[in-house]
């Protein structure tokens, strides 16, 4: 009796531990996933909004700018950033988080509240007036204004990217953030060169 019972008990314990192990394995990814107030989630939400404005400005420049180099750069920025919005929205889905957070913009950064411009804009974002100006601009003015606004936009974007890089060790987030930083840094060089060749200056901060 004892031997048979021992086997039964052993099998039962093994089954219980296997079950526990299986569910612990199922649970692990969700425990490791960034939470609703994490830097990763905040970055994904805010950067999506930030990117959306870059896409909007670039689509205007793609359509209305007169310099082929500006149109080409605008096209490339629009396509890249729209794709990146898609990647960030998938992160949020995978982490079971809403596209909308409960905290104000930039709250995920250490000094979040001070990151916002007085009217609540994120770093580098253009105002509605500036967007309207770009929309209504004609000829070379489109090229100049686009390069100026996009340069400032990228500088703000890189600041946010550096913010998330200092907060996260999530490899997926780091990989995209690093590529944003590299890509935008080289586009900044191009934008500065374009402004010089257009005979214009970057905007004052």
């Amino acid at each position, binding site marked *: 009796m004892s031997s048979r019972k021992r086997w039964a008990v052993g099998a039962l314990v093994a089954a219980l531990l296997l079950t526990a192990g299986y569910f612990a394995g199922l649970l692990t990814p969700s425990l490791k996933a960034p939470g609703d107030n994490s830097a990763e989630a905040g970055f994904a939400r805010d950067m999506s909004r930030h990117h959306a404005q870059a896409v*909007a400005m670039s689509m205007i420049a793609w359509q209305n700018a007169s310099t082929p180099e500006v149109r080409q750069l605008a096209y490339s920025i629009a396509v890249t950033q729209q794709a990146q919005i898609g990647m960030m*929205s998938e992160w949020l889905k995978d982490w079971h988080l*809403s596209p909308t957070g409960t905290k104000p913009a930039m709250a995920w950064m250490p000094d979040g509240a001070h990151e916002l411009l007085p009217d609540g804009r994120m770093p580098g974002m253009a105002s509605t007036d500036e967007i309207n100006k770009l929309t209504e601009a004609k000829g070379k003015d489109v090229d100049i204004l686009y390069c100026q606004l996009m340069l400032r936009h990228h500088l703000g974007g890189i600041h946010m990217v550096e913010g998330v890089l200092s907060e996260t060790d999530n490899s997926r987030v780091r990989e995209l953030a690093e590529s944003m930083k590299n890509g935008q840094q080289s586009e900044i060089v191009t934008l500065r060169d374009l402004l010089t060749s257009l005979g214009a200056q970057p905007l004052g901060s």
Partner: protein
Amino acid sequence: MSTPQGGGNKRSSSTVRVSGKTDAVNSTKTPDTRRSSASANRSRPPAPQMRVAKQRDWSWIAIIAVAAVLAGGIVGYAIYNNYSSGRSWQSKADSISGILDYRKSDPKLVATRDHQWGPITYTVTPPVAGNHNYNWQRCAGDVYPAQIANEHAVHSMEHGAVWVTYNPATLSADQVAKLSTKVKSVGDYILMSPYPGLKTPISLQAWGFQLPLQSADDKRIDQFIQDLRINASMEPGVDCSSGSYITATGTTPHDLGKGATDSGTTAPDSQPGATPAPSQS
């Protein structure tokens, strides 16, 4: 499972005490021989053997109990975690009190989403779904000072925007300001406009959903935005802030680029960044 085992154990403990301590030591020292030969086992006096088995019962029960508690805890937490984080946005939205879910009550309406020019009649006020204009109202946190065309706003909602409407006659100025601050701070995939004649002071819309409200302080506003903004999109990935959008107000749809699609030629090189609208969104 532990109850019958425990019962059996109790019964044995009284008989166990009769035998001496030395037996217990012996038997624990030779578990292998005892297990390997059944005949030797049988020749032994029954008491020590029983005693060994019974004494071990406690530890088995403890092991089972610990394993069961561990497994139960992990399984329970995993199920809870899966339930709470894995709930769909639609089921979260459905649990907002007072929300009207037309995706459930009128799936046909919600599936209707062709593009057309000119005025369109809607059965729900303000509309929550249906055919709409080729152009959408810009929904990048825009707060419109005057009424806008339903035909454009419905298209914005198709893109995933939340449309905040209020009755300018029944919602006070400071309540309007509060709503407007919220819309601007959300900043994208949301728009706000007055809607004269609205039955309640405020009404929130997303594709297939409506939530009539009395006050801008209602916590359900944040819930609605959180559950439905972007999530309710019928075309995930399409944006609010670039393309052939409308920023003008007025209840008559602005048929931007109509001539171009009618004649089959490309769109005029016009504002605001207008591309000829394709026949499907």
